[in-house]
């Protein structure tokens, strides 16, 4: 049984990835699991300069899900390379760096800076975080703008480039296509759904930032549908995520078209989740005589039974 999968130029030992923003910089979970056994670890989104993020409260639970408005708090690219990357380099796992900028040139500059660091295997552009103010969100909701920002990053780096898509759009396959056309090696989806919760006693939003991003099992059926739509539309690999809690959920995404899967909110509920999911996928594959994860990718049967 082979477990490895290819995401364009990026080869993973297995299809299970830790999702950005839910796995810290890897260290936090190394006490609970051997993070070297994961296909990849995606680190919390980085920007050129450190960011404080939003004031608290930043998270609130919702039915079978949670909202977060962390606001892209991060230590900045330089500090990451100096203080966090050396730890990650000790493991076999692939390191994917999630990053963002406030302008096209910042995106490109960040990509350049990250490309020269040792121990980073791929870049994931976050064009979809719903927590930023104002016009920013058009990077991830207007396919023409997406094309432009991805093209700029593509020119800036030779590293494997993953574009992370926002689900807050009418037609996600169109966004995936724009990323593909601009030279992305893979797309990852979904990021969180923009959402809101209000405390009826205080009459105030439950998040200081008013709105936040919905993640967790609640959104899984939407994410599976979007992965399926993108898989049909583009020829680059799709990384599927959104509410994966178990190996079954992960396999559901693979059947819908995902080449690899990322585990997010589940890490909070069970710090061993990502590894448990990998083990579950292995058992499923060996019970069915599936020799490679690729046999599952897009294998949903749509013909009438």
């Amino acid at each position, binding site marked *: 049984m082979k477990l490895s999968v290819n995401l364009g130029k990026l080869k993973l030992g297995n299809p299970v990835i830790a999702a950005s*923003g*839910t*796995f*810290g910089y890897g260290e*936090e*979970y190394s*006490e*609970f699991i051997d993070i070297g056994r994961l296909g990849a670890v995606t680190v*919390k989104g980085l920007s050129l300069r450190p960011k*404080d*993020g939003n*004031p*608290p*409260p*930043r*998270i*609130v*639970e919702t*039915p*079978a*899900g*949670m909202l*977060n408005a*962390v606001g892209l*708090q991060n230590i900045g690219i330089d500090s990451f390379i100096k203080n966090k990357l050396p730890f990650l380099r000790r493991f076999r796992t692939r390191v994917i760096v999630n990053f963002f900028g406030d302008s096209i040139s910042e995106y490109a500059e960040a990509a350049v800076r990250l490309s020269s660091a040792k121990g980073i295997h791929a870049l994931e552009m976050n064009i979809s975080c719903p927590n930023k103010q104002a016009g920013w969100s058009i990077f991830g909701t207007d396919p023409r703008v997406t094309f432009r920002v991805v093209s700029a990053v593509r020119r800036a780096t030779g590293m494997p480039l993953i574009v992370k898509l926002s689900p807050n759009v009418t037609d996600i396959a169109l966004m995936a296509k724009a990323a593909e056309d601009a030279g992305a090696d893979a797309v990852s989806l979904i990021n969180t759904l923009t959402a809101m919760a209000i405390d009826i006693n205080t009459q105030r939003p439950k998040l200081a930032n008013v709105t936040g991003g919905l993640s*967790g*099992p609640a959104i899984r059926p939407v994410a599976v549908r979007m992965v399926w739509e993108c898989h049909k539309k583009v020829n680059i690999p799709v990384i599927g995520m959104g509410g994966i*809690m178990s190996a079954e959920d992960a396999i559901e995404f693979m059947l819908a078209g995902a080449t690899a899967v990322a585990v997010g*909110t589940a*890490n*909070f*509920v*069970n*710090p*061993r989740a990502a590894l448990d999911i990998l083990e579950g996928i292995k058992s499923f594959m060996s019970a069915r005589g599936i020799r490679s994860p690729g046999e599952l990718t897009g294998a949903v049967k749509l013909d009438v039974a």
Partner: protein
Amino acid sequence: MSRLFEASVKDNRRLAENHYLLTFHPLKKIRRPEPGNFFMLSTGNGLDPLLKRPFSIHRRTGSDIRILYRVAGRGTDILSRKRPGDVLQIIGPLGNSFPVGRSRKNIILVAGGVGIAPVFALAEGLIASLKKPVLFYGAKTGSGLLCIEELNSIGIETHICTDSGDTGRKGPVTAILREFIQGNPSVSEDCCIYACGPEPMLRSLSALAAEYGLRGYAALEQNMACGIGACLGCIVNTTGGYKRVCREGPVFPMNEILW
């Protein structure tokens, strides 16, 4: 010793309206929790409630752990209906603990409502190491004063007050403490306050401590998702910038917290 474990409920009893004492037995050996540490406990059995809930260590008896909790919402409501034999998924012990390393002459403990949970753990530890802390304990009404018998049994000097005045003195715990400090000028020498309770109480306590130049530590609460420092969800604003309550806390020097 992994900090992820299962535990079986040994006992779960109602202490007062909306307040319960849960005793659980870890199904494997766990790290020894220190006062101030907390555990993340699963509550439901499906995907809702989804996240674990944080609770402070209240007491240890042998390998059993006790938490004292208030029914505040859905998760704690479900928790209150657990019965002996039910199994919980738990992460912990987590977070830092009350720094009592250096011996101090005057140790003042302050608790508001269910904030007694970790303060009791600290008191028990201090008394075991032959310190003589003084406890100021407030609640809305007498029925919100928990584990008074346990406090008596460990023999700690306790000053009780309630907002309603139905038990102990009437007024906020900070007012009682202020009088105490004024009546005992010597306390401020080499004194340290350790506190847990609702935010308004901790805020005015910080102001009081600043006024008298007293050192102090407060155990804070914030919504948590992971409990282990990964989600950046549980931050508090401090003089040193945003800090994670679950990792750099939950215990912070009072003078560093920007309320």
